[in-house]
């Protein structure tokens, strides 16, 4: 899918907020919990799993995840003086349907089934993907696909440069790549229930998200050390 490596180089802004490793760990922990908690709740309280009822489970996940992500990431604003907390929250909420539209179109282009019986699943899945990818970027005023457009509006840098960028971009990319890889078992004839759309794509995205969260934490630590050495 759209792999978003920002390639345009720009001078890093001086106002980039720095993130310390414990802070980053906390953020990642909260985000990870924001993903794990609804899964656990769905399984244990409502006895829902992704396989048995993908739509409802996905809905639960994206609602919780969106709330967590927007609240957490809105506190990391690039220029706090330009973008107030409430404004960042508002932008995050606005970005959710846009990101969902983009991921739904992308998934359909890649071969997701189109049909009335898949409508609810696709909508919930795309909102879920949007909550994983766009929201975290949105608090930062970056739109996923039209990063240049975002640059026009917000005039922020587009190449992952500081610790915060790593923290934001890597999990989003990981989720997309994970979802892309997760689609691979779908055509196989194993006749498992989880091969249905969008279950294994969701699993892939969650896996990719978690793995890249850990990776991004590693980057943050490495970045910190690098800067300390540099100093």
């Amino acid at each position, binding site marked *: *899918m*759209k792999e978003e490596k920002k390639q345009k180089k720009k001078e890093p802004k001086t106002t980039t907020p720095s993130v310390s490793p414990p802070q980053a760990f906390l953020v990642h922990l909260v985000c990870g919990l924001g993903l794990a908690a609804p899964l656990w709740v769905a399984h244990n309280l409502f006895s829902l799993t992704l396989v048995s009822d993908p739509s409802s489970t996905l809905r639960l996940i994206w609602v919780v995840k969106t709330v967590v992500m927007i609240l957490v990431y809105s506190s990391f604003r690039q220029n706090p003086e330009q973008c107030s907390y409430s404004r960042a929250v508002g932008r995050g909420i606005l970005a959710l349907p846009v990101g969902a539209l983009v991921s739904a179109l992308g998934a359909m*282009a*890649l071969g997701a089934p189109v049909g009335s019986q898949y409508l609810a699943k696709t909508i919930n899945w795309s909102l879920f993907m949007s909550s994983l990818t766009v929201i975290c970027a949105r608090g930062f005023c970056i739109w996923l*696909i039209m990063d240049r457009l975002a640059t*026009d509006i917000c005039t922020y840098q587009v190449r992952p440069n500081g610790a915060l960028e790593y923290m934001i971009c890597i999990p989003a990319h990981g989720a997309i790549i994970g979802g892309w890889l997760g689609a691979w078992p779908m*055509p196989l*004839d194993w006749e498992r229930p989880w091969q249905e759309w969008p279950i294994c794509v969701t699993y892939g995205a969650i896996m990719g998200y978690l793995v890249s969260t850990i990776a991004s934490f590693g980057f943050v630590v490495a970045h910190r050390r690098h800067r300390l050495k540099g100093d």
Partner: protein
Amino acid sequence: MGLTCHKLTLLTLGALTIQILGLSLFVLGFFPVKPALSGVSGPESFQAPGCDSFENSSDSVSQDLPPHRLKSLYQELSGIPPLFDRLILMVIDGLPAEFVLGKDGQPPRKDLMEAMPYTQSLLSKGNAIGYHAKAAPPTVTMPRLKAMVSGAIGGFLDVAFNFNTQALLDDNLLGQLFRIGWKMVMLGDETWLKLFPGLFMRHDGVSSFYVGSPLAFDVKDTVQVDQNVSRHLDEELSRDDWNLLILHYLGLDHVGHIGGRNSFLMIPKLMEMDEVVKTIHLNALQSQENGRQTLLVVVSDHGMTENGNHGGSSYEETDSLALFIGLKNGMSNYASTAHYSVNQVDIAPTLALLLGVPVPKNNVGVVISKTFGSLKDEKWLRVLELNAWQLLRLVQAQLPGLSCGSFPCDGSTIDLGSRSEECNGSPEKVLCCLYRNAALLHSAWKSIKVSRSTSGNDYSNTVAAYYQFMETASEWLSRRVTDVCISFSTSIDFTIGNDYFALQKPVGLLAFGVVAMVLSCLVLLGLLNCISGEVCPGRWCLDDAFILGTVMILVMSMGSSSMVEEEQYIWHFFLSTSYLLLLRRTVQSLPAGSVLSSFKLFKRQKERSDFRVLSIFLLLIAGRILRGWHQGGVNWTHLPDISKWLEQAGNDTVRSIQVASGILVICLGLFALVLFGSRRNIIQMVGFCLLNCGLLVLWHIVEYQGNAIASSSSGATLLAQRIYVILGITSGGIVLALPWFITDGMKSSNSRRVDSQNNFVLLPFRDSSYVIGLAYVLCWCLLQLLLQQPINSVPIFLLLIQILAILLLFSSCGLQFKEWVEVALLYYMGMAGHFALGNSNTLATVDVAGAFIGLSSHSTLLSGILMFIITYASPMLFLLSMVMYVSVKSTAYLAAEKNADSGHLLKVMLGLPCLVPLGLNSILLTAYTIVLLLMRNHLFVWSVFSPKYLYVCAASVCTYIGVLAVAATEVYAYFILVLRRKISVSVSNGVG
């Protein structure tokens, strides 16, 4: 520095020659040609092998004797009187045995039971015995018919010749019956007439090609085809001059192809078949009173999957029926017979022995025990003995030098001292030992019988011993024919020195073939690397890596049988991912602010970036529709898709869509031509010719297609032939004439100062190759509109849109893709389109119906070519579009190459568009060859991997032809232009 043009051409041609050589060697080595014994079984088959008094003179004996003498000779030698003197063989194409006999001991579904009341009553009363006759893959009609009448299992390549129905020259049941003077009548599928030319006294053949095509979604066609068989049935039954009547009903297969197993037409069709069985049986009972012993055998050649396809090796497809009606044994109730399972090849020896002729020479079947229920013990053992001798002869032919001890030839008993022994060891020892056991027990039983101390135990032991030998031998023989793994593994043993009978040939052939292919692949890749380094130097980026990764993952996925079955998903997934990557790249390369403006109001229409984004969206949308058009593959074919939905909407909808997409193709093509420059006379001429062709094709669609009766009429054939000729003349004429007449229209309009001599050639070259390419693409599309199924006309239009969109994208200067990435993308699009047109990696999806459009007589070569054109429509289309691609790209060289010589220019322009498809194809071919070799012991080697290999081979041929056409066209155009330039220069010099 780099290679010269000559060297490059020579090296490429050399590599290709090696590749073709290696491929043909590998195919010869891997696909075993059926090891058939020539000649026919004669009187010698009634004597034990090794002591035949007829051995030397068998041919002359059987040839010289008049039929009735031969018949009595057989009867005398065999000692068994023929049980029947008339046989009615009723073949119901595609009937799964499950419909009649149920599955796993369970009776069939209630509605199926009720659909065939008479047959079911015969079964329950014990008047009929039914068997699940397991058919060997490939489950296609002709190989199965051959198996039934000759008892032999054909090799894999027989499928390829299924459409090329040729006379069956090997020993077979019909030939044997003909030799003893039987008179034969055939009603039904024409395949029989082609298999057995001249054997039938009377026949009324129906062809399955037109009526059975997916073209005909008309209820009438499944009915008409069987009425054509039944219309003479009463007449034939009332006659008394035939011995063998063959009825081949195709309707049920057609019902399956149209609506699957649960089609609403299935029950009426089964009822119709039941009526036929009833008619025949009642008639047979009547004639029995007149002293004619008639046997009715109802068989099906293969089963069908849930959605009515066949060709593979699933239980549903191989579960065919063998139903014997009229055997004189009052035994058996329904429950006990319902789940007997035999092999389809067992029908041949059973019928041969029932009718008193020798078992066909290459038979690997085993006589079906219950069918001889009325015979005495002694006769039954004799039947088993005859079958065992025949099998032993075949084993001995496979293993020269095998002799299983000597037995007295006069049938006298041997001493009772020899005892049966445990059999183990190498296959030949086991076979020998089993045979010896059976023979010993038999002779022991005979001697006991002589001494009148009969014992039931000895008899059943003998029967069991015979069966043990025959089943082992049959299994061993059929494995030997169908499995290369046996010959391959034994031939490896041979090199170690273990196995004396192994074939050395395959290993050498296979090894040489693989090495040659690897070598040519390496040479091509080396050349590719060389050229691409020269033409498009630059850093590696994500797109390049992705394109290479696609090849790697494709190669890896080929090792999994389910990935091979569902290959269309991989192509589409990769292709749309690369479109998305293109989109990302395009958006990134836009100047800041332009995305916003393009999404606002499209105010800046002149901006090239706008249509770049738009053309990518066009590619994405067209690609998605193409993916949804045919579900494709094997496992999920039954899921709904656009083509099924349209077909349900009815014939008229499909036809109107076909006409509409025909008009759209013509309009789009002419639009692309007009955009190029409408004011020039030559362009107008070309446009007029293409329009003419298009209108002819439209005429054919409107007038004849969509209606099975009209589409096979002579008017349709004539028109189609004319269209072939006119399309050929148009495209050929444009290619030959255009470089001579193209004017430098761009010279005046192009403000750029043309300062080098090359540009006088390059500008018209660019123009002419654009027009030629467009003419190629358009002619090919029109041909496909004529040949493809009506439902595929929209995909053809979408493919044309994709071609134009991607060329538009590549023509813009802003995007700096590497050229090989672009060519590879075009190749991938061709492959994705191949699956979008409904093709898959099973042989069942080859469109046979289209291959007979415009052919007035059956010609294997011509229909083969048409079938190839239909199947490889999309890869060829994209290869032909390379001509346009070269033209689009040659603008870039105008600036870059100021004073290069012709060779260098041609190399730069043509090198990559020709080498990339060849290189990619050689990677896939070589990798798949190795995969096939590794998978030779896989369960699905014949049903999944081998058909895929045939497709890969055909795709290679397609690539060779396409690249050759592109290269030849461009070189021709270029040199004609150079010649023109020289002439004009010399003329002007002369004037000066």
